[in-house]
C-alpha cells in the first residue's frame, strides 16, 4: 500500500510525541535546517534562500496569528565568516499568502563560534545564539532568543548532527515560560559524491523541566536530500510531515545557497 511508509512515519512520530511531556509553541518554519558545526571561512559570504511552503497547516486565525496553511516563506540568510572559528548570520523573514500578499515577518541575527579545528576534537562542536524580532501576526512571541549547541560527525558515508536548542521568549505570551527545549537532529548517507539523502527531525517540547502535553508539542520529520554539486553551492530539498496537532502537517522545503569568497588569496598565504 502506498500510504504505508507515511503511516509508519506518523506512527513513529506519535510514539515519540507520547513519550515527551510538553507545552506547545507556535512554529516558525522560516528556516528549517539542522546546523553543521563548521563555520564559514574568513572573508567568505554565504547567501542562502530558504523556501518553505506549508501544504497542509493551520487554517484558523489563533490569537491574532495568521493561519500557516498555504503560506510561502522565503527567508534570506546572509552569513559572513569572521575568522577560522566564528561567523555571523543575518536573516530576513518574509511570508506570502493569499489574502495577505508578500509580507515582511522579521529579522534575526545569529553569531556563532566553533571549536577550532586545531583542537582536533573527535566531533565538530559549535555554539550559536540567535536574537530577533518577528511580527505578532506571524508569531505571538515577538522577541525571542535562542542558544543552540551544535554537534556533528561524518563517519565514512554517514553524517550525524544534533542541535539541542534552548529558546527564550523576551516579549510575547510565553515570556514567563522560561527556557524551551527545541532539539533537531539529522542523519544522512552519501549515496554518491554528489547525492546524499537522509532524515531531519525537528521538535519543540516546550518548557525545559515541564514539557508540554504531547499533542501540544511540535514534532516534524523531513525526508531530505543534499546535492553536493560544488563546494560553492548548497542545495537541500525536503518534504516534512508533522504528527501533532500543534505542528503543520505537510511542508515542502528547499535551501539554495551560494558561497562567495571575496578575500584576496595568494598562494603564499
Amino acid at each position, binding site marked *: 500500500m502506498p500510504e504505508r511508509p507515511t503511516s509508519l512515519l506518523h506512527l513513529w512520530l506519535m510514539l515519540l510525541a507520547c513519550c515527551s511531556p510538553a507545552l506547545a509553541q507556535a512554529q516558525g518554519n522560516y528556516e528549517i535546517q539542522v546546523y553543521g558545526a*563548521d563555520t564559514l571561512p574568513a572573508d567568505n559570504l554565504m547567501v542562502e534562500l530558504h523556501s518553505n511552503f506549508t501544504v497542509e497547516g493551520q487554517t484558523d486565525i489563533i490569537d491574532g496569528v495568521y493561519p500557516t496553511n498555504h503560506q510561502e516563506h522565503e527567508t534570506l540568510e546572509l552569513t559572513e565568516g569572521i575568522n577560522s572559528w566564528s561567523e555571523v548570520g543575518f536573516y530576513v523573514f518574509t511570508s506570502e499568502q493569499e489574502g495577505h500578499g508578500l509580507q515582511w515577518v522579521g529579522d534575526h541575527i545569529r553569531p556563532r563560534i566553533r571549536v577550532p*579545528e*586545531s583542537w*582536533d576534537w573527535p566531533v565538530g562542536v559549535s555554539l550559536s545564539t540567535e536574537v530577533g524580532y518577528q511580527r505578532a501576526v506571524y508569531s505571538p512571541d515577538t522577541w525571542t532568543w535562542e542558544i543552540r549547541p551544535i554537534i556533528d*560527525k*561524518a*563517519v*565514512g*558515508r*554517514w*553524517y550525524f548532527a544534533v542541535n539541542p536548542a534552548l529558546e527564550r521568549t523576551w516579549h510575547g505570551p510565553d515570556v514567563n515560560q522560561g527556557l524551551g527545549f527545541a532539539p533537531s537532529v539529522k542523519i544522512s548517507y*552519501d549515496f*554518491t*559524491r554528489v547525492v*546524499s539523502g537522509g532524515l531531519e527531525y525537528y521538535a519543540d517540547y516546550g518548557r525545559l523541566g515541564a514539557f508540554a502535553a504531547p499533542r501540544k508539542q511540535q514534532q516534524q520529520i523531513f525526508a531530505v536530500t543534499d546535492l*553536493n554539486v560544488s*563546494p560553492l553551492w548548497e542545495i537541500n530539498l525536503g518534504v516534512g510531515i508533522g504528527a501533532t496537532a500543534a505542528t503543520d502537517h505537510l511542508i515542502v522545503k528547499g535551501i539554495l545557497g551560494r558561497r562567495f569568497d571575496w578575500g584576496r588569496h*595568494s*598562494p*603564499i*598565504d
Partner: protein
Amino acid sequence: MGSSDAGAAAGDAAYGTHTGAPNGSDLTLVLLAVPVARRQGYSRPQSHQKDVVRCVGDAFDRYHRDMISRRDLLQLSGLAAVSSALPALAQDLAAPDYKLEIAPVTLDLSPRHQIKTTAYNGQVPGPLLRFKEDRPVTIEVANHTDRPEVVHWHGLFLPPAVDGSLEEGTPPIGANATAHYTFIPRPAGFRWYHTHTLAMDDLTRAQYGGQHGFLIIEPRDHPARYDQEFFLALHDWGGHLLASEDGAMNPSYNVATINGKTIGSGEPLRVKQGQRILLHVLNSSPTEVHWIALAGHGLHVVALDGNPVPTAQTVPMLRLAPAERVCAVVEMNNPGVWILGEVRKHVQAAGMAIIVEYANQAGRPQWQQPPGLIWNYAQFAARQPDDEPTESPIIIPLAFESKFRGHGSMEGWTINGKSYPDTSAAPLKQGQRYRLQFINKSIDDHPLHLHRHSFELRRLGAPLAAASNSAAKSIRGIVKDVVLVDSQTQAEVEFTANNPGATLFHCHQQNHMDLGFMMLFNYA
C-alpha cells in the same frame, strides 16, 4: 642538522672503533642469503642517543679490501640478514656497521609542542648514515615497538629482500625483534631511509611519525665543492582529518618543523661569510608539498633526489613533494641573521623554519617574503639533449583516479581502475627500456615513487585534455626516484628494467598509498 653535529658524529665516532672481522666470512655469508628476522626478548636500549650508531669507516675499508668475491656473491644473492640461529661466528661476522633502534619517544618540537611518536635511536631525524658506494654495509635494526616494522632504503638499487617493502617481499621485523640488513649501497647520492608501513586512519603512525633519517652514499666525486654541509628534513606533525573542498577528508597538521624543531626551538645553522654551504633538503612529510627559501640568498640546485642535474640553476626557492630531496649550494655572501623556511606564511607560522646565523652577527632573524611560488623541473634538464635513443621504449599508461568513500572518509585510489592489491602490469623484461605515462585524472597532485630504480623525466605538465597532441616539451637528463605529477596532467618518465625482482610503484603520499595507490611490477 649540520655536519657539525649528527653528520660529524656519525663519522667521528666511527673511525677506528671496529676491530675487523674474523676469517671465513665469505662462506658463512653466502649461506645467509635468505633474510631472517631475529626474534629476541625485549631489551630496552640503554641510550637512545647517537652513540648507538656505529660506523666502521677505515676499519671497514680494510676489512673489505679482500672482499671482492664476497661482494660479487652479495650482488648475486641479495643478501639480507643474519639470524639468531647462527653460530657465534656468524654473529661476529655480521657485526653491524650501524644500529638503528625503533622505539617510542617523546619529542619537544617546541617549548609549547610535545609529541609522542616513534623514532630511530630516539631522535628525529634518525642518525645520518654514511655509506661508501659499492662497499657492503650491514645495519642492525631493533624494533622495540609492539608492531611489525620494515625500513625502506629509499633511492637505492637493492634486491627486494632488503629494499624494505613488505609488498616486494622484504620480511617484516617483528614486534620486539631484531633484523640485519646487509647490502651493497648504490647509487651514490643523497638518499634516505624510513618506515614503509601503513597508517590507514591512525595519523600518528608510519610516515606521520618520526621514522625517517638521512642516508648519504658517498660518491667518488661530490657534485659540488663546499665548505660545510647541512641536512634538513621538513616534516608535519599532529595530523588530523579535515573536510576539504574535494568532498572528502584529508590530513591537516598543527605543527611543521625542520629537523624536528619549530623555528627558534633548535640550534641555528651557523655559517661564516665567504663559505659555500651545501644543503641536503628532504621532505619527509607524510602528505604535504613544501616550498623552502633562504632569505637574502639564492639556492644553487645541483642535484635532485640525490642525482646531479644536467643544468645546475640558482633559484629563489625549492619545491619538494613528499620523499623528494634537493641538494643546493649557497654562497654565504650576505652577512646577517636570516630565516630559512617555508615560503607559505601559514606553514612558516606553524613552525617550519630555521635560523641561519653568520659568525659575529646578531639581531632579529630576517625574512623576505617571496611574492609567489616558483618551481619548474625542466629548468634543470639538459640544454642540448642527446639524440633520442634508437630503441623505442615500451609505453605503459597508468591512469590515476580517486574513489569516493564518503564525505567522512579519505578517498580511495585506483591505478588503471584497480586498487592495490588488485593493480597489475605486464611483466618487465630485463634490459628493456620502458616509458611510464602518468595520467593523473584526479584533482590531487601525486608524488610518484618507483622502488629499486631511478627514472628519467621525459615530459611534464601536459594538460589531460590535450595530452595526446600536447606541445609539452620533451626533456632529458633529470634522473629521479620521485616525481610530482600535477592534477589533471600527464607526465612521462623512462627507466631501464635493470634490477630484477618485485618492484613497488606508489604514490608517496601516505594516505594515498594506504588506500590503494600502489602497484607491483614484476620481471618476466
